[in-house]
């Protein structure tokens, strides 16, 4: 299936190659570079490129292109999903998935890739199994290793691979047994010029951090499970129980993982927590324009809207911006033409406002479109859909765990058209 993998950085250097079958020459990447050049923007590099002998399937993550070489028919999503899983694993192991991190840990990377694929077919992709096979590097361990000459490779062989619960390793022990659940909801919305909602939807995830000894069997129930319209599960969840009782019953993996992601049914009206008043105009033939944006809270259920950031991709003709912000600070990058305004917390008494003059290139025609405003915000202790965890029960172990649930609402792809 997957023949080879090349990691390429933004400047076009191949800094790692791995072959699972016979060796494929680096020159195959030339087709990729060609496509990359054509695409202008990194985001527009086609994920699938056909070359005379091979197919290249690539993903772009954290400024690295993961380019895989394929020789025969394979579902492209299979490869894409796997490459993302590789990137996730690097992230998990090294804390970041960057060129330096990979170069610094090239041996571990190689060992990981070796375990993750056999003859191009995924073998072990569960991070718990991998961590038993190859221990992630820590500062302490690298010090110890350099002194004792011991290694990162686990000397006990993992049993998880053989069990029915491959996501959990055996013999987990903690002194403090804790289970935390973060209910994170994101509002995706498109607001049109006049302020009415074109499209709004709530997407949520429950991220868990479970540090429980032994083999706990958890069940998590909600006050209002009917809210969840479309759910995707971590493999640990027993689908049958969800179908029949709407209870999440599972033996959790150890550590951090995403339990479920869900979409709230579209029947429910989405409460939009902020509104934006905007006035952006460019004068004909005068090489300047006005920019005036105010953000205010709306239907926030008594919670403060914080972490507000507005980013705007200004038209190419914009040369510079002279603005004054009543709150927070703004930056304008004249190269990428991105205006970013870090507002912070919104207090209803004094609404944050950003106002000023836009300088255009002289002679350039007036931009036809006003730029869209992308808004980010955060509301703590609130799940905007109203989803509430009812209770968490643990079976199978005797101790009493510490349980915690946190709610947070964020802006997802929240866009205001102007």
């Amino acid at each position: 299936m997957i023949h080879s993998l090349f990691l390429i950085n933004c400047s076009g250097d191949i800094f790692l190659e791995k072959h699972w079958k016979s060796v494929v020459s680096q020159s195959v990447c030339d087709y990729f570079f060609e496509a990359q050049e054509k695409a202008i923007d990194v985001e527009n590099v086609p994920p699938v490129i056909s070359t005379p002998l091979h197919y290249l399937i690539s993903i772009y993550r954290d400024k690295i292109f993961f380019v895989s070489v394929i020789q025969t028919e394979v579902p492209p999503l299979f490869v894409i999903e796997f490459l993302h899983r590789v990137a996730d694993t690097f992230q998990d192991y090294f804390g970041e998935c960057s060129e330096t991190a990979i170069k610094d840990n090239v041996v571990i990377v190689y060992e990981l890739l070796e375990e993750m694929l056999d003859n191009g077919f995924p073998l072990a992709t569960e991070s718990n199994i991998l961590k038993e096979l190859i221990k992630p590097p820590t500062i302490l361990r690298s010090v110890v290793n350099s002194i004792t000459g011991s290694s990162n490779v686990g000397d006990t062989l993992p049993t998880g691979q053989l069990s029915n619960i491959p996501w959990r390793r055996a013999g987990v022990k903690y002194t403090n047994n804790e289970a935390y659940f973060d209910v994170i909801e994101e509002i995706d919305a498109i607001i049109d010029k006049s302020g009415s909602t074109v499209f709004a939807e709530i997407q949520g995830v429950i991220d868990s951090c479970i540090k429980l000894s032994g083999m706990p069997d958890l069940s998590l129930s909600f006050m209002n499970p009917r809210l969840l319209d479309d759910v995707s599960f971590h493999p640990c969840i027993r689908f049958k129980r969800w179908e029949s009782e709407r209870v999440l019953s599972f033996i959790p993996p150890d550590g951090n993982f995403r339990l479920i992601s869900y979409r709230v049914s579209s029947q429910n009206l989405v409460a939009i927590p902020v509104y934006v008043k905007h006035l952006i105009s460019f004068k004909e033939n005068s090489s300047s324009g006005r920019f005036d944006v105010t953000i205010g809270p709306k239907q926030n259920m008594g919670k403060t809207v914080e972490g507000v950031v507005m980013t705007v991709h200004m038209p190419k003709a914009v040369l510079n911006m002279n603005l004054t912000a009543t709150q927070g600070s703004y930056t304008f990058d004249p190269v990428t033409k991105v205006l970013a305004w870090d507002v912070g917390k919104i207090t209803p008494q004094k609404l944050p406002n950003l106002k000023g003059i836009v300088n255009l290139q002289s002679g350039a025609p007036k931009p036809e479109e006003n730029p869209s405003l992308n808004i980010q915000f955060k509301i703590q202790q609130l799940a905007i859909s109203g989803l509430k965890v009812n209770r968490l029960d643990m079976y199978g172990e005797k101790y009493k765990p510490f349980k915690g649930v946190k709610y947070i609402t964020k802006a997802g792809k929240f866009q205001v058209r102007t």
Partner: protein
Amino acid sequence: MAASPAYGEEKGGSSSLGEPEYGHDPASGGIFASDYKRHDDLKEMLDSNKDSLKLEAMKRIVAMIAWGKNASDLFPAVVKNVACKNIEVKKLVYVYLVRYAEEQQDLALLSISTFQRGLKDPNQLIRASALRVLSSIRVPIIVPIMMLAIKEAASDMSPYVRKTAAHAIPKLYSLDSDQKDQLIEVIEKLLADKTTLVAGSVVMAFEEVCPERIDLIHKNYRKLCNLLIDVEEWGQVVIINMLTRYARTQFLSPNQNESLLEESAEKAFYGSEEEDTKDAKAEAASLAKRKPYVMDPDHRLLLRNTKPLLQSRNAAVVMAVAQLYFHLAPKAEVGVIAKALVRLLRSHSEVQYVVLQNVATMSIKRRGMFEPYLKSFYIRSTDPTQIKILKLEVLTNLANETNISTILREFQTYIRSMDKDFVAATIQAIGRCATNIGKVRDTCLNGLVQLLSNRDELVVAESVVVIKKLLQMQPAQHSEIIKHMAKLTDNIQVPMARASILWLIGEYCEHVPKIAPDVLRKMAKSFTNEEDIVKLQVINLAAKLYLTNSKQSKLLTQYVLNLAKYDQNYDIRDRARFIRQLIVPTEKSGALNKYAKKLFLAQKPAPILESSFKDRDHFQLGSLSHLLNAKAVGYQELPDWPDEAPDPSVRNVEVPEWTKCTSREKRKDKVEKPFYSDSEGESGPTESADSEPESDSEESGSSSSSGTSSSSSEEQSEDKEGEEEEEEKRKKKKEKGGPRKASPRSVGSEEEEEAEGKKVKKAAGPQGKKGHAETSSEEASASESSSSGSDSGTEAPTVVEAKRRKVIPSSKAGPKEISLLDLDDFTPPPPQPVPSSSIISTSLVTDLEGLTLTDTSLAPALLSPAFGAVRTYELLHRMAGEGLSVEYCFSRRPFPGDPHMVAVQIQISNNTDAEVKSLRVSEPKLLAGMRIQEFPEIESLAPGDTASVVMGIDFCDSTQAANFQLCTHTRHFYVSIQPPVGELMAPVFMSENEFRKEQGKLTGMSEITEKLTLPEKCRSDHAIVQQVTSAANVGRVPCGADNEYRFAAKTVTSGSLVLITLEWREGAAAQLTVNSEKMVIGTMLVKDIIQALAQ
């Protein structure tokens, strides 16, 4: 960068070695170091006897490989370390070896013996990794070794090793495709494996080696469907894709009937694509011939079992299920996939890209499916262009009369985007909407005309192109719009737009005969001030008018051409000269003049506005080929539905009694046992092959009511199996009816059978009449209970139980019955003193318990668990064993000598002509903790003789199979015994109070509760007790309540309690609770008991 850490690391390493080493450092770390030198250094480190140095060296070498640098000259130095004790060094050496073995084949052979040794290691993970590396070394010489290793690993008792074997198959195949036939054998064997670990990998191997051998799937189809949800995610993708293809060859199209109705309705609404009409026509024709369609239950099974996977977190799995539904599900059901696909749009942009491509194709065929999610395809300014364009495609496909106004409003926003490629695509999309939906055509045209004044040339050009296309399609309305556009020439200043309008007027000048010359007049006036492209179009217009309407435009044309002749731009001068020669007849102008009209006013074909995704669905969705819209290497064509369904009975699998049930529907749910995968037990495929196609479809439809529709031909094709079953039931009833002396006997061989046939028939009475004469089933029915043919003369009536079911006697525990049964010359295991007296007493008491509660008229032999119908399993088939057939059963007696072992009674029959000598067990391969107490070696077994022995196995309370070899003086047979979970325990007696107390301790996690419905025949006390005790070796616990049944047992190895409570509620409803600290056992037990009760 590789140099600097290496430098540092080496320092660390060398400091331990001493000063001399240190001296090398500057050279090796420096930029001027020659490769030669550095490698020397590495070689030295590899040769040292310190693991830490070796490790450093290997790390540096692996870093070199990762960089793509050549490290092949180190091969000899590295390969020496293949047997290194240090596990990390070893691993890195493997990495190196796999990379370079191909280039240094001779040297690579040095390492082979290490792996061969590894293949024999008692640790399964080491065996697996040895096989993995061995099979990854691409050296053709070792093909035979690999083949051997794969074959051996395929029958390894560890599923993990078997999985690795499956992975090795395609590797070997790519190395040497001549091995195909042998590999297919291995694949066939592994396909029968029932562990989830193996399933995905073997199907992957199947797809790479022999995707055309669809016949290998038949027997495993139901198993694969049932296992699917538990297979790891990557395996799921492969299996689902394969099953899609399989289903296309084996089942009938579920849409053959509805499609006609639906599509015509759809057409009426939207006036949809012509393709539908084609389909409808074809289907109408075929419909006339066809009977009403009923879905094959196996088809339904696939759809049902894949549906939950739409909830997977893995996008590839979701996509695989989506394509399966798209290609296989009835139209009405395809809708479920939309929601899941829309969810994937939140994922990474690459995932979005692929998903949108597939959604685009689907939305052409099944528009209704995505309509509710229209807004999810709205475009954000931050989307990458390629995503925007795909979303636009989907939006366009979804447009219909009801939502077009919303969509057009969206499009208006998009048109003002900064991304000009996207704007161009939007204009195209508007054009397509306008052609598809007549209502909005004018609105769209007007909107597009306005766009002609856009400043951006791309937008203008695109608009003109689209307008032009629209105009070409509806000639009737030409003049109005062209007139309108002619007026625009006064206002529009964008040269591109002016040029485009002039082209249009020229092209359709005969539709606007009055205006065209006037436009030319105006243009002639301003000619000198126009942009170059406009000038060119003015010349074109003039030429066209001259040809059609020379009277009015002759002078104007002359004027324009004269102006152009002196233009500054040479292109224009050139064009003017060219046109003058062409259109104005002179003496010199040659033959071309005659054709001028044809040249200029040729009919230009109307461009077709249709989706580029239109016919893509002939590629399997989700495939690479679909994405590229070209056949990729190794793409397996998705076959068309067959006109008539192939024989569905090929998927039938012989299942033991406890999983058998009369209704096909239920039967197919059962997971088959690999023991019975031999074809011998199959119902003859001939029966249904004879039956007419109609009966086929009817049969498949009758799944829910198989018993009732006796009038249809279904009954016939229901296999003899079914009849036999009925027969048996009757028989059983009879047995129950009057106390009979049921004495088991076996038919050792065919000759024997013949000799005794009469007796059998006499004895068995009417029930012997029916087709048990089928030799195959006869042979199979040879049971372990009778030791030889010598007892055939006994008075005891013989009951030949069909196939592998057998009433076997027990010499213990049942005080009265023994005497009857003992008439057999049964050779029980040497009567051993029972180690724990409690066991015997408990089983006794529980038996009595059972007796008191059940109908006394029933034969006691059937009542107590210890004497219930004990199933026998085949250990070695007569064919595989070259005449030696071996069967086993769980006698449910404590194993003498070791209370932690499960007693397995083994019945060996010698069907050969020769004596078999020194039969024994050897080389058991067991999971950690498992133990085997072998039976004493059988010195010899005469031809036709049967021997019965008992061996003990400590399964460690797991259902993992015990693998061992059965050796004769000539041969070795690999066999394995896998216990049903119910056999891993022994009955315990306890009082009601004790039971309650113990149950109280085993709540929460240890308690598994399942609801079930009791079928008609399982609603008596007797039936329930019997079914439960036959499914598991448990003892009855008295209970005060009327409708509650309690059973207790202890697992054999660890002695953990297993408590079973069955509460019978109103009507058929019942609830089963199992309490056991062994969760796995509890879960499996619940499953087994429910299965037993559901029969």
